[in-house]
């Protein structure tokens, strides 16, 4: 069955219709409206909707369903020329849902943990934080794309990245005028999402960037935040733990299906 290309508003209407008819706690991985997305591909039934949003070289699948069987039927029917990535966020693994993913050709590829920190350490640096400039947007984008996993790390679009840079939410280290390391974050009210940390410069610059981040947070009166870390990356988890971050029990599982 071929999905239909529709605007977000049509998907929203379909979700509202399902919710109005079936007042149950839905299965969903769609937590924010995709109002800016174009070319969303949707497949729907009376009890479920599945839709794909194309990213770099794959499509990310979102769903809203009253039950696993309805979702599994749409996943089985959903044809795509691009690899599909689907996931879900929950405190505990839903084995029935995982079985539905596996039965419809998806393979688990990653598992991330959310870590929170409610008392950032006092920054140990007197250096003024350096921020990326709008002119460096493409350089930052290239560094992010070559360092992080587009599937699991939810890389920002160029427009989103530019907006973060304009809001001074990308800290950098430079050597000979070139960016060699960065921290990108997103302020959400009185807490911050610590998104990306990379260092290709001098040994120790990663620590300097972390201290710059904490200094920047202290200057903005922010003392708490969260991040997502690959559960298989033991070293990263240990480093974050040493800096006061603790797993809060929320998980993000990723599944991938190759193109038909």
């Amino acid at each position, binding site marked *: 069955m071929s999905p239909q290309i529709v605007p977000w508003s049509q998907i*929203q209407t379909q*979700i*509202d219709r399902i*919710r*109005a008819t079936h*007042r*149950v*706690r*839905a299965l*969903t991985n*769609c*937590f*924010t*409206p995709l109002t800016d997305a174009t070319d969303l591909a949707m497949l729907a039934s009376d009890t479920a909707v599945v839709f794909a949003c194309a990213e770099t070289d794959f499509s990310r699948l979102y769903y809203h369903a009253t039950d696993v069987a309805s979702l599994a039927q749409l996943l089985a029917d959903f044809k795509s020329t691009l690899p599909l990535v689907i996931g879900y*966020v929950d405190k505990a693994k839903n084995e029935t849902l995982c079985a539905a993913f596996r039965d419809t050709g998806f393979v688990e590829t990653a598992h991330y943990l959310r870590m*929170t920190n409610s008392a950032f350490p006092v920054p140990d640096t007197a250096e003024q934080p350096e921020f990326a400039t709008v002119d460096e947007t493409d350089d930052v984008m290239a560094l992010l794309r070559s360092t992080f996993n587009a599937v699991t790390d939810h890389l920002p679009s160029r427009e989103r990245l530019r907006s973060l840079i304009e809001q001074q939410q990308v800290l950098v280290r430079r050597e000979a005028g070139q960016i060699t390391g960065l921290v990108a974050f997103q302020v*959400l*009210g*009185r*807490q911050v999402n610590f998104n990306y940390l990379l260092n290709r410069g001098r040994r120790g610059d990663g620590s300097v960037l972390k201290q710059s981040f904490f200094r920047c947070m202290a200057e903005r009166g922010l003392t*708490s935040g*969260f991040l997502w870390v690959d559960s298989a990356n033991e070293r990263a988890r240990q480093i974050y733990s040493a800096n006061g971050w603790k797993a809060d029990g*929320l998980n993000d599982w990723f599944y991938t299906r190759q193109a038909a």
Partner: protein
Amino acid sequence: MDQILDILSKIRPETDYSASTDYLADGLLDSFDIVTLVSDLDAAFGISIPGTEITPERFRNAESIAALVNQYRNA
């Protein structure tokens, strides 16, 4: 209002919602929680909150959530 606080406490049992007037800014509620909360409000009050109403300002605190619920209970 008590029923709303009861629903909230089931989503995050460790959280004291009475100490905050802005759940989102204070990190007591995030987008994942809001999706669960909307389903629970729909079921508990026999309403259907439209997706277009699922915006951060409608879930800022118990008062704004109560206003949202009442809007659709009376609709």
